[in-house]
């Protein structure tokens, strides 16, 4: 029997997160194209960014890849492929630590830069500060469970608890009891993760949705017709209610 708190945290909150994440992104995309940007601060400072930026992002992409592999691919599939538990554990520990370390160090450089370069500090909004806090907490907790819980303390098989819970949410068969008994740090990591996704559409993180992959196949020079967009016409409304 799951307690009401568990139900709230592991069934209601995840769906709320999904609704806000998807709905918020659609809302922001429709409503606030002009605010949709990386708001790069490289003009103010390059040296630290050139270390921190790539380290953080490339580490993060590995981390994201690891999450996809760990949460979405069922244990039965890897076992059927002949990958033993120990091997999987070792690979996830080593790769996870490397990726996590790159991310953490990268983020540390970026945060230090935000703090110490006056112009960058001035360009940091409250929204940014909240994003950094939640993002940092999520990543540090994730790093902690990987290195300490999963490594030093001998290992915890999240693939029989957390991963099925996660897939249950996506398949509309939520089961809070699966995650309710996971170690505290895992649950905290998941909670902060959800907070991050709640924040995502309303922060600078939306830039991740604009990863310009189409650029790889586009012709170099873009032509666009003036068409209906004469400067002298009143600009088309970009909000919801078109006149």
């Amino acid at each position, binding site marked *: 029997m799951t307690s009401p708190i568990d139900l709230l945290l592991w069934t209601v909150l995840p769906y709320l997160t999904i609704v806000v994440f998807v709905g918020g992104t659609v809302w922001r995309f429709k409503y606030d194209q002009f605010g949709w940007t990386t708001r790069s*601060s490289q003009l103010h400072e390059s040296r630290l960014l050139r270390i921190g930026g*790539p380290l953080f992002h490339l580490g993060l992409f590995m981390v994201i890849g690891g999450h996809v592999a760990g949460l979405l691919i069922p244990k039965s599939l890897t076992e059927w492929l002949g990958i033993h538990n120990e091997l999987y554990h070792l690979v996830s520990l080593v790769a996870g630590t490397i990726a996590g370390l790159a991310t953490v160090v990268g983020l540390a450089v970026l945060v230090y830069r935000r703090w110490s370069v*006056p112009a960058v500090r001035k360009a940091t909004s409250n929204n940014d500060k909240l994003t950094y806090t939640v993002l940092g907490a999520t990543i540090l907790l994730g790093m902690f469970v990987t290195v300490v819980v999963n490594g030093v303390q001998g290992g915890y098989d999240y693939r029989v608890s957390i991963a099925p819970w996660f897939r249950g949410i996506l398949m509309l068969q939520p089961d809070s009891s699966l995650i309710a008994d996971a170690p505290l740090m895992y649950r905290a990591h998941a909670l902060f993760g959800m907070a991050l996704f709640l924040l995502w559409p309303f922060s600078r993180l939306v830039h991740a949705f604009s990863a*310009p992959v189409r*650029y*790889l196949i586009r012709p170099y020079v*873009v032509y666009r017709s003036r068409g209906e967009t*004469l400067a002298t016409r009143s600009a088309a409304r970009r*909000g919801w*209610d078109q006149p």
Partner: protein
Amino acid sequence: MRPMAQLAMVMNLDKCIGCHTCSVTCKQTWTNRGGVEYVWFNNVETKPGQGYPRRYEDQEQWHGGWKLGRNGRLQLAAGSRIKRMLSLFANPNLPAIEDYYEPWTYDYRNLTDAPLGDDTPTARPVSAVTGAPTSVRWGPNWEDSLGGAPEHAATDPVAEGMRARLGKSIQLEYEQAFMFYLPRICEHCLNPSCVASCPSGAMYKRAEDGIVLVDQDRCRGWRMCVSGCPYKKVYFNHKTGKAEKCTFCYPRLEIGQPTICAETCVGRLRYIGVMLYDADAVGRAASVKDDKKLYPAQMEVFLDPHDPEVVTAARRAGIPHDWITAAQRSPVYSLIAEHRVALPLHPEYRTMPMVWYIPPLSPVVEAVSSTGFDGERAGNLFGAIDALRIPVDYLAGLFTAGDPDPVRDVLRRLAAMRSHMRSINLGEPPDRYVPKSVGMTAEQIESMYRLLAVAKYADRYVIPTAGISRAHELESIGTTCSLDTDGGPGMGGASTNGHGNGQTDLFTWRDGERPEGMFPSLGRKR
């Protein structure tokens, strides 16, 4: 043949007095907002000098524009698409704000608020970026009229190029130094590397008039265009996180008015008109092997608007009738293609720039006269061109990728014009040898003289409008102002909060306000 129309500009450097009126009026119009304090869509630099941003012409350092790949095909100088995608997280070629200059203002309040004391209060400079007290070390025009030249001008990339090519250094000693002013705006290139660098596809070249613009709604702040432009004429607004650039004042051009910088130029040295060109030929012309062939190659791309075949093709391509007639009367076409006195700026960047320059000649007359000879006699003038105070080779480094011959030809045509017109003014029979020696007729020389010396407003600016059928809409430009909010002038970004156009930005969302149109209204539509 695929004819397209391009609005282009020619500037006559002989007439530029370096007054910066163009820069100031452009700034007042377009970049007097937060986040672009350091941005000058139009700037006037002194040559020789490092320019703005510093040493932007050194593409070994900045990797702007195009280069020929090993397979002979055009590619961006910053590297392949994959390489540039991987450098999205930190752009290795982006100038820092110090490369432009750190913008500043003064603490004027101290002048009125300072407590009574023995010393007169001062207004100290404060950084416009951080608000902290600052010391001013460099500015948008630090090198005006050779200020600091002995220290800085030797690192002018054009001068360095000349030294590398010919082993000749420029003279910086007081009595031998030379200088001229170079006003620069976006070149609205035929082969724009900024557009090609933009990962989001937010930058585009307008099909109707060739103006290169940034869609403020689609820009995602990847800042690759800033480094992609070899002229460094795309700027990053550090407050809105979007790229901004010279718009060729398209809202004005659409109703037939010249750009602000041209309109307010006290020297009346700018010309605006239509050029027809063959879009199919651009890629080939931009990839000719020899840098020095790029100027002639670009000339080949232009179409003769008087040629009936071109007119038919242009009409078939949907270019409106008034644009074709404007191209036939275009002062820009005359100067570039008929009189051949205008040259492109740095054709070696391979972007096919469309703001061209008539190189300066003035000091030569003085120089010849001071030696006791008649400074305006053609023979003396021609002979003196190679002894010009402004070295032909320096001009060649700016305008023809180092080939002195086209520059010399232009200067000879300008010298011939002086000599011919002087004879007419003095009532002497003009020497028929003079026009012939520069490959022109007397009529041509006189028509060029009219265009360069007496052309009125309507002759300098031949600008077809964006369409008569829209005339009543165009009128509204007189009654609305699209420029008065942060981050939103023209360029696709309209005003933000409180102007009822249903758009806001979460970062400027003020307390206690609910901007119109932010949420879908569930009630019945009125």
